[in-house]
């Protein structure tokens, strides 16, 4: 084609295609491509924002969980050494005597009320000696980023305000944090009872939600006629329950388990306690509430696992003359088990982080003893985090961050287990 042919004025055909640079040619491709690049950038940036959000979440927790602490001392610990043994190396009995000598009666009484001196660990006693006798006083805490980047300025400021104070780098997440009871003093407080409370609660939740969820899923997948009205009602209902805010479950648990079933959930029927002393705010109530909360999730996950079992397996079993239940028990369930367990781990990781319903059900905040069973009063890890976050002092922020790291570590190991299970099932099928 020659240029003359393409010119509309020559050929009289305005529909003929135009090329770039010709008269009457309008180029919208460049603009559209520019727009496309802009949108693509927007999409990528949005995704990056999501990653940055996760990153700053983790950064923020780590930042608060480690950092410099300035400690001022009233009494020189060296003067407290007995018989040439340094304070840190004294046995529990010596520390207890030391406390009885040095402390005021009133302070001693408060401490004994929490837990008798004789029953406390050496570490615990040493902590008390350090706060009450030596007078270890936290005069300042700094987050990790400040500690690393502004160390000079911090030291200069501290020298001016508290010349005797010593500056040490502290990891708030330390073995003692895991093993010691909570305490009003953030330097000594730990998450031992909270971890145990969480584990007990989760145990109750699993014991209730796993069989109930699997049973319901088996009924819906293997027995119920799909087109029956009742089946549809149950199915819709399960989907709706999954969307109910968790705090509503807390109110349900408070009314049903804590109040209505108090004789049962408080353990009064076992110990023979009178109704006056019975208290339904126990691990059992909390575990049952969480079980109801994760039940929809558990049912839906179990249903998916059961649905994934190939029909040929059932037909083979029926063909050999097995009954329906024999087929389910001997073939469907074992084959669906890894999927069911993966689903269970997912519901457990939901339950382990739940805070609001347990606040409503009434987890206690001041617990200085290990929970001893399903009828104990309790606290759980997320509630401990909530309590500490709500305090204004920076030290409590730091131990809240340390507790968050413990919680995240628990969740991470659960999820790792789920991934491990999922991979195993993929190999088998």
């Amino acid at each position: 084609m020659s240029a003359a042919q393409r010119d509309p004025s020559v050929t009289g055909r305005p529909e003929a295609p135009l090329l770039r640079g010709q008269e009457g040619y309008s180029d919208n491709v460049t603009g559209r491509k520019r727009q496309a690049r802009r949108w693509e950038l927007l999409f990528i940036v949005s995704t990056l924002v999501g990653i940055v959000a996760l990153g700053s979440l983790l950064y923020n927790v780590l930042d608060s969980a480690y950092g410099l602490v300035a400690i001022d001392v009233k009494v020189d610990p060296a003067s407290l050494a007995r018989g040439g043994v340094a304070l840190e190396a004294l046995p529990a009995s010596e520390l207890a005597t030391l406390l009885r000598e040095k402390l005021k009666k009133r302070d001693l009484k408060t401490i004994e009320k929490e837990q008798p001196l004789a029953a406390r660990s050496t570490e615990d006693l040493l902590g008390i000696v350090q706060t009450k006798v030596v007078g270890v006083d936290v005069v300042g805490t700094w987050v990790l980023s400040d500690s690393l980047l502004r160390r000079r300025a911090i030291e200069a400021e501290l020298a001016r305000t508290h010349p005797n104070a010593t500056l040490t780098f502290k990891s708030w997440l330390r073995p003692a944090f895991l093993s010691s009871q909570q305490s009003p003093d953030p330097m000594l407080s730990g998450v031992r009872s909270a971890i145990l409370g969480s584990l007990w609660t989760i145990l109750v939740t699993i014991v209730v939600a796993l069989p109930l969820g699997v049973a319901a899923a088996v009924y819906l997948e293997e027995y119920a006629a799909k087109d029956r009205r009742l089946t549809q009602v149950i199915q819709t209902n399960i989907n709706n329950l999954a969307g109910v805010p968790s705090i509503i479950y807390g109110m349900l648990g408070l009314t049903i388990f804590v109040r209505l079933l108090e004789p049962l959930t408080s353990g009064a029927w076992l110990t023979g306690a009178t109704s006056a002393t019975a208290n339904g705010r126990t691990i059992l109530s909390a575990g049952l509430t969480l079980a109801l909360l994760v039940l929809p999730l558990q049912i839906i996950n179990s249903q998916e696992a059961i649905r994934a079992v190939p029909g040929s397996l059932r037909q083979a079993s029926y063909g050999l003359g097995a009954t329906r239940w024999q087929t389910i028990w001997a073939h469907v369930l074992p084959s669906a088990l890894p999927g069911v367990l993966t689903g269970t781990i997912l519901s457990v990781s939901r339950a382990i982080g739940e805070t609001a319903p347990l606040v409503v059900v009434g987890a206690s905040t001041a617990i200085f003893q290990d929970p001893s069973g399903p009828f104990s009063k309790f606290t759980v890890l997320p509630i401990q985090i909530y309590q500490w976050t709500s305090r204004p002092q920076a030290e409590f922020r730091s131990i809240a961050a340390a507790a968050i790291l413990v919680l995240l570590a628990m969740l991470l190991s659960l999820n790792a287990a789920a991934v491990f299970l999922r991979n195993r099932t993929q190999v088998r099928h």
Partner: protein
Amino acid sequence: MVEPQRMKPLVDRGALSTVTDVDFAARLRPQRRPWEAVIESGLFVAALVSVLTTAGIIYVLGYEALRFFLLPQVTLTEFVTGTVWQPSIDQFGVMPLVSATLLTSMIGMLVALPLGLFIAVYLSEYAAPRTRGVLKPILEVLAGVPTVVYGFFALTFVTPILQNIFGRNVVEIYNTASAGLVVGILVTPLVASMSEDALHAVPDSLRQAALSLGATRHEMALRVVVPAALSGLAAAFIVAISRAVGETMVVAIAAGAGPALTLNPFKGAETMAGHIVRISGGDLSYDSVDYKSLFAIGLLLFLITLGLNLLSQRIVARYREVYE
């Protein structure tokens, strides 16, 4: 079908052994298996537990809320129209709690809807399979972080940033803006993953048609795929709103402790869920007005979220495009 002739050899073999013809006929009859029926009804009861849970929720909230409204100092009109929530002086207007809930949810949605949708479009239409394989687990991790951790994040990270940007005297320590933003971050993974599912369900033939007509990738994504997946996206958005309305720990930690009727996002205000948590966290007598009032708020919260969830299901059922 079993032919009589075919049965013959079997019967003969039966005659050889000790089994008589009569016994054999009895064996062919279906056996009664009482255990099967017991097990089936047991499983049915387990399936009913979820229905009982719903019934329990409605009964508990309804009963206690009714007891609240039957109190002499409470009227339904005041509950709906009153602008002060102060049970200690018999003021029961739920509006401050509702407005704070709407405020945090709206701020959250301003973050979560575009962010979640864009992430979904990127994952579904742009990202290479390998990138997707890296990004999806990150989203799942973000979705699995407990809400109390997000509350910590809001109070110790987002609030100081807001204070640095807008000034300490403008932004209070407890404010709805920080809580709302973090609620947005919290529901973003939910929006992204539900939206991605919806986009994924759009058949490739539509994409190929759009591209073959000369559309750029973004025109294909925004003018073909997104409209085709609209019902799924709408459902995702509504579920996200419902989640934001019911979100508790972030607002309980970061939004403030005290009902306040304000539209200023830099001031503290208490949401419905936040109020329930704060009040029930203290020692509360089961007969007090405060206790009963919590259930009225809870009922309202339940109805709002249930309505939103039902709406989302209706949209999916009604407007879903079914592709071959």
